[in-house]
């Protein structure tokens, strides 16, 4: 489903941050949909270049555009405004509290376009708005798993229903870590670079434990036991121990798990009764943090081992 936001939503969420004031609007035009996360400064349109004109974008008009505009004569001004406003623009924002010519307002009313103004500079508006729109349009999906903040790392625990994700999460919470979401984790890709996971609506911070039912973690363990959202740093897949399968023994190969096109370090941990998965996850997390700091224990061991082999005069090639 294509994402979109209405001009009304933009106002509701960014009005105070961007110091937006309504200039030309109607209940109908406030429903105008913004379907792209980009912003356009229509300087080229003002000089008549309409190839690839991003009319679907929010238009931000600043001092440069208005200085040029104000130098034109009445006929040229009318021509520009009429052509510009003939496109299905959702919304125009004038920055720096610039004076908005009445012809702009008239044409906006006629064409169902919203005009807003702000006291902020064009750069500030474009910057803030870009971040906000990126957030709104960030690709996202719901994942079945449990997301926790363990030692500052966002750990997404995956596995079939019944393998023990929730019980393991409960143990981690007992040990002082924070729950972000259980069962339904909404993961979105921010600025195309990293993943952020969060809980969804009213079930946020609740957990379903077989035998106990649905429990409210925030009420039982307090506000220190929960987080609203967390960047994903690690994925741990729990699976029932399969005797015929090869599990990672050395830790040389670094597996990754891909969500929405972003790769996250991945560990696959076999589950057997009597083993504490929570402790394994803590170990996996600290291990991951060490790796990020540049310390790789397996490589260290390998290096020391070769040192000893070489010293004892083994036939190993010293090019190692």
């Amino acid at each position, binding site marked *: *489903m294509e994402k979109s936001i209405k001009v009304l939503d933009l106002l509701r969420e960014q009005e105070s941050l961007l110091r937006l004031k309504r200039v030309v609007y109607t209940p109908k035009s406030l429903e105008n949909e913004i379907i792209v996360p980009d912003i356009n400064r229509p300087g080229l349109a003002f000089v008549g270049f309409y190839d690839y004109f991003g009319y679907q974008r929010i238009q931000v008009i600043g001092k440069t555009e208005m200085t040029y505009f104000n130098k034109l004569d009445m006929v040229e001004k009318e021509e520009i405004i009429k052509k510009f406003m003939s496109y299905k623009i959702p919304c125009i924002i004038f920055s720096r509290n610039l004076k908005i010519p009445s012809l702009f307002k008239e044409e906006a009313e006629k064409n169902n376009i919203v005009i807003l103004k702000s006291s902020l500079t064009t750069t500030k508006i474009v910057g803030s708005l870009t971040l906000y729109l990126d957030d709104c349009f960030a690709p996202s999906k719901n994942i*079945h798993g449990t997301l926790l903040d363990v030692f500052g790392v966002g750990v997404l625990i995956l596995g079939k229903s*019944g393998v023990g994700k929730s019980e393991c999460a409960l143990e981690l919470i007992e040990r002082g870590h924070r729950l972000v979401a259980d069962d*339904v984790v909404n993961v979105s890709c921010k600025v195309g670079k990293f993943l952020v996971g969060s809980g*969804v609506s009213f*079930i946020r911070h609740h957990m*379903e434990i077989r035998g106990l039912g*649905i429990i409210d973690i925030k009420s039982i363990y307090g506000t220190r036991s929960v987080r609203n959202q967390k960047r994903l740093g690690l994925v741990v897949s729990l699976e029932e121990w399969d005797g015929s399968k090869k599990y990672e023994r050395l830790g040389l190969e670094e597996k990754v798990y891909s969500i929405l096109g972003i790769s996250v370090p991945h560990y696959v941990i076999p589950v057997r009764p009597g083993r504490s998965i929570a402790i394994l996850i803590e170990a996996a997390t600290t291990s991951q943090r060490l790796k990020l700091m540049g310390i790789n224990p397996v490589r260290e061991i390998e290096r020391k081992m070769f040192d000893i082999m070489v010293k004892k005069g083994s036939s190993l090639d010293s090019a190692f």
Partner: protein
Amino acid sequence: MGKYEEKVIVKNKLGMHLRSAGLFVETSSKFRSEIHLAKDENKVNGKSIMGILMLAAARGSELVISAEGTDAKIAVKVLVKLVEDKFHEEE
């Protein structure tokens, strides 16, 4: 490995409330296939009670029950019937 899906309308007076969701999960958990339940653009794991509750499907909502696995088709058929039988609630 099969994939199968079917649409169904929620007919219960109280919609997909706690008891219905519980019964749905109890039934879906018996099958080996992966089961998903979708309402509009929200797709959740059909074996997770919290996911189903999150959908907040009221009477009249259209749900898509899909399954992937060896018993996909029978799983969907059984679950669709459960919803259409109003979860055995109303006589």
